C-alpha cells in the first residue's frame, strides 16, 4: 500500500513539473491536498482501525486525525496560495522561475508529512520529519532574499541539529528494546506493547533526548528561536505550512509520552513536559507584550499554544489529552485565519510592523475584521473552540498544582492583552487629513468657490493614502470558510469528532 502511495505521488510530482500556467500548478496542489483530505476521511470511515499494512505502514485514529488536520490546513493554504503568490510575483518579490519550486516543495511537504505520520517505525518517522524540515525551509527561502535565506538556514540548523539529539534518544530506545526483547525494534506498536518492561532511567533518558528533537520541531522554548524569524520573513503561505509541521512534533511527543506512561519514569517525564510548557508560555507571553511585528506576534502565540499543549500532555489524564487533541485542531484553524489576514495586510503595507499600518479599516476592512475575530478566537474567547480546550486543560492542571493554574491563567491574560494592545495600536492609526478631506469634500459641495483650493489639497492627500490592495479572488474564501468552521466547532461539538478523540485516547492506552 505504501508503495502504491509513493508511486502515485511520484507520478503526481512528475506531472507537477510539466505545466507552465500558474492556475494549473495551483489546482494540482489544491487537488493533491483535497485528495489527501478525502482519503483520510474515507480511511476514518471505512477502515477497521488500527490497521497495519506491511512492515512500515500503520494506521490508527491518532495519525489519521493529525493527517486530517494537516490535509485541511494544506487545502485551505492551497486555495489562498494562488492569489497570494500572484501578488508576490506582481510586486517583484517572487521570481516567477521559483514558482515551480514553490509548488514542488508544497506537494513534497504534504507527502513527506503524510509518510512520516503513517510510518510505524520511529526511525522512519524521524527521517521523514527531517525531510519535512528541508521542504519547509525551501518554502521559507523561496523569495531568495537574504533575510529569507537567513531564516530558512536558522530553521534548518536549529531543527535538524536538535533532531540529531532525538536520534540519540532513538538509539537508546532501540538498545532498550534489544535488552528486553532480545531483538531491537523501533516500531511504535511493539514498543507500546513492551514499554512497561523497560528500565525506567533509560526510558527517561531516551524520552529526554527525543523530546529535545521533537520539541524543536514543535517550536518549544528554548528551541523556538527559528519560529519568529520563519514566520516573519516567509510568505504567509510558507508560514502556515511550517506552522502545520509543528503538529508533527506534538504528535511525536504524544506517542513518546504514551510509551512511558505506564512506567515509573512517567512522573519525571510529566515534570519535564510541564516545566518546558510553562517556560514556553512565559517566554512567549512576555515577548508578545511589546511586539510590534504582527507575524512575530502570531509566531510567539504559536510558541505559547505549543507550551499549553505540552502541559496538557504532561498532566497525563485522559480528559487533558482529549482537549489537547481538540486544541490541535482548533489551533490550526485559527492560526491559519490569522496568517491569512496578516498576509493580506502585508501585501497592503509591505510591512508587518505596527507603525506602518494606517487606515486599516479604510483600506482592508474585511481583513481587519477577520484579524480581530481571529485574535478573539486565538486568545480563547467563548464562542470559539479554543475556549473549552483551554478551560479544561487549565481545570485539569489544578490537579497538579493550583499555583500552576494561577500562573498559566495570568500568562494567558498577558498574551490576550498583547493581542489587544497590538490591535488597538495598529488599527487606531488613522491619517488625520482623512477627516479633513471628508470635511473638505462636504464643504466643497456647499461652497463651490473654494473648490480649487480643495481639489489641490485632496490631490495631495490622495497620494499620501496608498491605493488599497485588491484582494484576489479566492484569497478570502479559505479564511471565511475556516472562520465559519471554527465558529461551528465552538458552538457545537460534533458527535463523530468525540468518538474519534475517544478512540484515540483508548488506543494510546489511557483508559
Amino acid at each position, binding site marked *: 500500500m505504501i508503495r502504491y502511495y509513493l508511486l502515485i505521488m511520484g507520478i503526481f510530482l512528475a506531472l507537477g513539473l510539466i505545466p507552465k500556467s500558474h492556475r494549473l500548478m495551483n489546482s494540482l496542489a489544491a487537488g493533491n491536498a483535497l485528495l489527501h483530505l478525502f482519503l483520510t476521511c474515507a480511511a476514518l470511515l471505512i477502515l477497521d482501525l488500527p490497521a497495519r499494512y506491511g512492515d512500515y505502514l500503520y494506521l490508527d485514529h491518532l495519525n489519521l486525525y493529525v493527517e486530517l488536520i494537516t490535509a485541511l490546513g494544506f487545502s485551505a493554504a492551497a486555495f489562498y496560495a494562488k492569489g497570494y503568490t500572484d501578488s508576490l510575483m506582481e510586486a517583484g518579490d517572487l521570481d516567477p522561475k521559483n514558482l515551480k519550486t514553490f509548488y514542488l516543495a508544497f506537494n513534497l511537504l504534504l507527502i513527506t508529512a503524510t509518510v512520516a505520520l503513517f510510518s510505524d517505525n520511529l526511525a522512519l518517522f524521524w527521517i521523514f520529519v527531517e525531510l519535512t524540515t528541508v521542504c519547509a525551509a525551501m518554502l521559507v527561502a523561496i523569495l531568495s532574499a537574504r533575510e529569507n535565506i537567513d531564516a530558512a538556514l536558522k530553521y534548518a*540548523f536549529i531543527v535538524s541539529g536538535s533532531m*540529531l539529539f532525538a536520534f540519540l534518544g532513538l*538509539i537508546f530506545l532501540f538498545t532498550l528494546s534489544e535488552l528486553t526483547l532480545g531483538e*531491537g525494534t523501533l516500531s511504535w506498536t511493539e514498543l507500546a506493547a513492551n514499554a512497561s518492561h523497560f528500565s525506567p532511567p533509560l526510558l527517561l533518558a531516551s524520552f529526554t533526548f527525543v523530546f529535545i528533537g521533537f520539541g524543536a520541531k514543535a517550536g518549544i522554548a528554548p528551541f523556538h528561536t527559528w519560529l519568529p524569524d520563519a514566520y516573519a520573513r516567509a510568505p504567509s503561505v510558507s508560514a502556515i505550512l511550517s506552522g502545520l509541521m509543528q503538529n508533527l512534533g506534538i504528535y511525536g511527543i504524544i506517542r513518546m509520552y504514551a510509551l512511558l506512561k505506564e512506567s515509573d519514569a512517567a512522573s519525571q517525564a510529566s515534570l519535564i513536559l510541564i516545566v518546558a510548557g510553562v517556560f514556553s508560555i512565559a517566554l512567549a507571553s512576555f515577548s508578545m507584550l511589546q511586539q510590534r511585528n504582527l507575524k512575530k506576534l502570531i509566531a510567539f502565540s504559536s510558541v505559547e499554544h505549543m507550551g499549553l499543549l505540552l502541559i496538557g500532555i504532561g498532566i497525563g489524564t485522559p480528559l487533558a489529552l482529549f482537549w489537547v487533541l481538540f486544541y490541535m485542531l482548533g489551533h490550526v484553524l485559527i492560526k491559519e485565519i490569522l496568517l491569512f489576514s496578516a498576509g493580506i495586510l502585508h501585501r497592503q503595507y509591505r510591512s508587518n510592523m505596527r507603525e506602518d499600518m494606517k487606515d486599516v479599516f479604510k483600506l482592508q476592512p474585511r481583513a481587519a475584521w477577520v484579524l480581530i475575530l481571529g485574535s478573539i478566537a486565538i486568545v480563547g474567547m467563548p464562542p470559539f473552540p479554543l475556549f473549552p480546550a483551554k478551560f479544561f486543560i487549565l481545570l485539569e492542571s489544578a490537579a497538579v498544582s493550583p499555583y500552576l493554574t494561577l500562573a498559566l491563567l495570568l500568562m494567558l491574560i498577558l498574551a490576550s492583552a498583547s493581542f489587544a494592545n497590538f490591535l488597538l495600536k495598529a488599527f487606531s492609526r488613522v491619517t488625520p487629513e482623512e477627516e479633513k478631506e471628508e470635511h473638505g469634500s462636504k464643504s466643497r459641495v456647499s461652497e463651490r468657490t473654494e473648490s480649487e483650493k480643495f481639489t489641490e489639497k485632496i490631490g495631495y492627500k490622495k497620494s499620501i493614502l496608498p491605493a488599497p490592495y485588491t484582494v484576489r479572488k479566492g484569497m478570502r474564501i479559505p479564511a471565511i470558510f475556516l472562520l465559519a468552521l471554527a465558529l461551528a466547532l465552538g458552538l457545537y461539538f460534533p458527535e463523530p469528532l468525540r468518538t474519534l478523540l475517544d478512540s484515540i485516547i483508548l488506543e494510546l492506552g489511557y483508559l
Partner: protein
Amino acid sequence: MIDPFLLEGLIKILFVFVLISAALIISTRNLSSVLTTYTIQSFLLALVSFLLYLMDEKGQLLLLAGLTLASKVILIPYFISRIEEKIKIGRDLHFTYLEPTTSLLLSIGLILLSYVFLSRIFEDLSLSKLFFFGAVIGVSLTLMGMLVVFSRRKVITKVLGYLSMENGVLMFGLFVTEIPFIIEVLIIIDLVILVMLTTILAVGMDSSIEEYRQKFRKLQIWTGGRYL
C-alpha cells in the same frame, strides 16, 4: 585472524584522533582546513567501523564503512569544496558568543559531562569498556559539533559543524547498538539532501557574487543598500 587486543588498542588510538579532529573544527579559521579536518574525521569513522567489522565479522559494519567512505569522505566534501571555490571566502574569522579557547575549554567540560551522564545511565547495560568509551566519544562529538554550529558565523562552517554532529550520532550508534541497515542508508540520503540545500542557500548568504547582489537590489521590501 588479527589479535582482538591489537584491534581494540587501534580503535582507542582512533578515538583520540577523532577528538582532536573535533577540537580542530572548533578552532580552525581556514575554511579549507576545516573541510579537510572533517574529511579526515569521517575517514577515521569509516576506519573504526572497518576495525569493528574485523572484530565482529558482521557484514553490516563493512557496508557501513563503505557507505561512510563514499558519502562522507568523497561525495559531501567534494560538493562543499566546489561551493567553497564558488563563494571565494578563504577564512571564517568571526566567532559569535564563544571564542575558540573558551569553546575548547567548554568542550572538555562537555566530554566530562557526557562521561558522567552515560556512566550513570549505562549502569544497567552490560557494555564493555571499549563500547562505553565509543558511546562517550560519540555524544561528546555531537555536543562539540553543536558548539561549532553555535559559535561560527559563516554558514559553510555551520554546515560542517552539523555534519560533525551527525558523525557523533553515527559513532554513538556504532558502539551502542546496530541500527537496521536500511535506516542508515535513509539517514545518509537525508543528510545529503540537507547538506545540498543548506550549502546552496549558503551561496546566497556567504557569497559576494555579483548576481546575488543584483537580486537583492531588485527587492522592494528591503529597500536596497542596507545589507550590501
